[in-house]
């Protein structure tokens, strides 16, 4: 019986010490970040690998999500005779929640795991050690550019997601179902507020970007230098990032709705 609690205690202590280590990595990255901007092409390269290569999955997912929102939303709204509010529903759902959150989850799965695997592998093949011995800081050269790329990429991807999702909702609502086009857009414009909805959504995607990127970088940096270690680390990246995103979403949403 006691061992059960011992295990929980030990596991909890381990997780907290990892959280501490990840925070330390965050501050180390910040202090070593000057290189990422002085040699901006390092960061640009990483923006390509995290952002550009994620575009397809983001755009396709967004389109489908928007279409489903259109369908589901219409089906429910027309029961109350409010089918013209479909534009508002799709836009608000995407901009406030689905855009930032789903983008973050997809990002963690695609770009996050790639980052973890890459860094884990570089650690396992002693490339990071080699760089250190050549008096080049691996944090400055490898880790920090990926961090800044992740922060820049996430809000852009989330905006693209929301926009494409709205287009998907439009495609279902107006040509397919027959909702009035004017009503679709004007209701949306009347009820989506820039400061509250769009800016808040942007802030959310920024926070999610920081969280997912740090988790991916930390798991890669911390992974045991074996094949099994790296594969376990990529799994942990996805799980931890997803939980972090959903948890942060709740915190941010409650904060934004009350303030």
């Amino acid at each position, binding site marked *: 019986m006691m061992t059960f609690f011992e295990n929980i205690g030990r596991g909890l202590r381990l997780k907290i010490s990892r959280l501490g280590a990840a925070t330390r990595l965050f501050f180390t990255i910040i202090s070593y970040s000057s290189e990422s901007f002085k040699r901006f*092409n390092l960061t*640009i*390269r990483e*923006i*390509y690998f995290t*952002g*550009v290569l994620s*575009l397809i999955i983001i755009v396709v997912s967004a389109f489908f999500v928007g279409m489903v929102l259109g369908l589901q939303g219409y089906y429910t709204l027309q029961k109350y005779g409010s089918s013209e509010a479909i534009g508002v529903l799709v*836009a608000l759902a995407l*901009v406030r929640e689905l855009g930032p959150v789903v983008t973050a989850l997809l990002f963690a799965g695609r770009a996050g795991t790639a980052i973890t695997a890459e860094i884990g592998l570089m650690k396992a093949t002693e490339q990071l050690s080699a760089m250190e011995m050549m008096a080049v800081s691996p944090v400055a050269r490898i880790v920090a550019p990926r961090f800044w790329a992740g922060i*820049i990429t996430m*809000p*852009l*991807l989330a*905006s*693209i997601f*929301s*926009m*494409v999702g*709205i287009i998907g909702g439009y495609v279902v609502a107006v040509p397919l179902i027959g909702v009035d086009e004017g009503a679709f*857009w004007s209701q*949306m*414009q*009347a009820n*989506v*507020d*820039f*400061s*509250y*909805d*769009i800016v808040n959504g*942007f802030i959310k995607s920024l926070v999610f970007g920081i969280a997912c990127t740090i988790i991916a970088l930390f798991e890669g940096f911390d992974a045991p230098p074996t094949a099994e270690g790296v594969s376990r680390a990529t799994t942990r990246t996805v799980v931890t990032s997803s939980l972090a995103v959903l948890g942060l979403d709740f915190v941010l949403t409650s904060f934004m709705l009350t*303030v």
Partner: protein
Amino acid sequence: MDRIKLDAWVGIFVALGLIALMGLAMKVGNLTSNDIKTTYVVTANFENIGGLKPRAPVKSAGVVVGRVDSITFDTKIYEAIVTMSIDERYVPKRYVCQYLYRRLTW
């Protein structure tokens, strides 16, 4: 992957992201109807502000004509004082303010 192609793709990506953001701001939100012009200040007393917050839009006939600047409490008359900035172009003869879920209409 040579540098030029990489830079080009990143440029396209960032442009797409910014266009999406602009699109959201303009078409979807109500940024365009924001008054960037000069404004004048109006104060109104409310018995209950409900969920009203600073930066909430102020509308007349459904059109955004201003924004709420600040909300304070007057200890003498025990009412909320809402200060708002209205676009200079719109100066009606009479002001009647009605609170309508997070936004003011008058």
